[in-house]
């Protein structure tokens, strides 16, 4: 960068800005500072530029203060869409898929379709458009910040002594809170099970931190698939083949991974995900 040609010429705004921003080379920085030491006019101008930055930052911050919509809904949707993409187009493809380019295109088209559907849904969630048509946001994994899981301090004997292993109905008000928390307050209730992350049949608590809206049919990893895992884990716990706390941790940590582990499969079994919604 060419600095002052003559001793008595002043620094340009651009040179002063680069100095304020620490963008000058060591050599140019030294020249600028030595000029500033001697020149009141340039020093004042430098302060004005510094002040202009502060003014702009204030205007910029004020423009958005408290106006950004909450991130929970979009985050949950992003998670759901990533899970869908992973299920539809896994990276490590099985051998029968590899040679076929046509299948690649089908997968890509399906992925694009899912993305488009997701984008439509997030728009509806933000703008409220689409009502009175109800939304069906696809959710197959809980947001761990909203739903970390909660369990009662109960022993294996207490859990296994329960005669009724069906999940008890979640009160409507609590269901509404869950939908709201996930940013899908206008959701079609029949499309979801407001599901316990740790099922009460494994000591799960009736707490909002243990509840999330799980899609029934929109995804392969749907609520019925998880129900099958819950039955399997309870059976293993009560048979003494699995520790209760371990079962609770596995289902709360990553229920899909637990399903794969206990059913020895990478994909949900057809007999599970095709069951009818109650």
């Amino acid at each position, binding site marked *: 960068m060419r600095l002052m040609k003559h001793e008595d010429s002043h620094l340009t705004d651009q040179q002063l800005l680069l100095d304020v921003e620490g963008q000058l080379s060591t050599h140019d920085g030294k020249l600028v500072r030595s000029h500033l030491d001697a020149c009141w006019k340039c020093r004042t101008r430098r302060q004005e530029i510094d002040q202009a930055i502060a*003014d*702009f930052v204030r205007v*910029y911050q004020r423009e958005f203060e408290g106006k950004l919509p909450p991130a929970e809904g979009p985050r949950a949707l992003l998670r759901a869409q990533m899970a869908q993409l992973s299920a539809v187009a896994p990276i490590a493809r099985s051998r029968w898929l590899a040679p076929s380019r046509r299948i690649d295109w089908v997968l890509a088209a399906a992925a694009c379709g899912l993305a488009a559907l*997701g984008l439509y849904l997030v728009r509806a969630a*933000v703008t409220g458009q689409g009502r009175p048509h109800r939304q069906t946001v696809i959710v197959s994994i809980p947001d761990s910040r909203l739903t*970390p899981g909660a369990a*009662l301090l109960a022993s294996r004997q207490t859990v296994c002594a329960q005669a009724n292993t069906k999940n008890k109905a979640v009160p409507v008000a609590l269901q509404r809170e869950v939908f709201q928390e996930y940013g899908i307050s206008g959701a079609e209730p029949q499309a979801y099970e407001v599901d316990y992350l740790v099922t009460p049949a494994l000591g799960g*608590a009736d707490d909002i931190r243990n509840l999330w809206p799980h899609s029934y049919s929109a995804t392969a990893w749907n609520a019925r698939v998880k129900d099958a895992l819950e039955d399997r884990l309870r059976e293993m716990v009560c048979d003494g083949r699995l520790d209760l706390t371990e079962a609770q941790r596995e289902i709360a940590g990553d229920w899909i991974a637990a399903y794969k582990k206990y059913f020895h499969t990478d994909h949900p079994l057809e007999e599970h995900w095709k069951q009818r919604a109650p």
Partner: protein
Amino acid sequence: MASRITGWTVLPVSPVPRELDHGDARGRPEEEVVALFDQFRDPLLRYLSSLGIQFADGEEVIQEVFLSLFQHLRHGKARDNLRGWLFRVAHNLALKRRYRTLRESASLGKTGAEELAMAPGPSPEEQVVNSQTQQRLQAVVQALPEQDRRCLSLRAEGLRYREIAEILDMSLGAVSLSLGRSLARIARAAER
């Protein structure tokens, strides 16, 4: 809620799912993408808004950006300067969307002005609360050429000159000239 009921405990959920213990050392792309979403969603939404994209459209663009990032990471592509990558992709998608909106407006006989309106300005109440200087500064910023406003917004979001140059496809010199020009205008407005 659990704290009100004795005998309940919240199970800790490990930050990296068990499944990954023997998987990719960097962790699942999903988790990395969500962490980046948490870090950059607000800055991106603000930047898109400064491009004239309404929040609802901005959310859609951001979903598209992070799904692209997910695919990018899943395929093991370059991961240097993901912040710059996110802003660049968001910028390009937003411009495409604006272009599409403009074309649709033209075909519907709209002027397009309402489609490209900036994020809603302050309400009358807010205007009273804002000082006159603030209002003047706001007006100056709104009146800046679009590219200058983009440079300012990106800089305000903490991007470096080199990153801004890449996102907006400008030279480094053009970035510093643009910022210098805008700040000089703001300084003049504050003096009055």
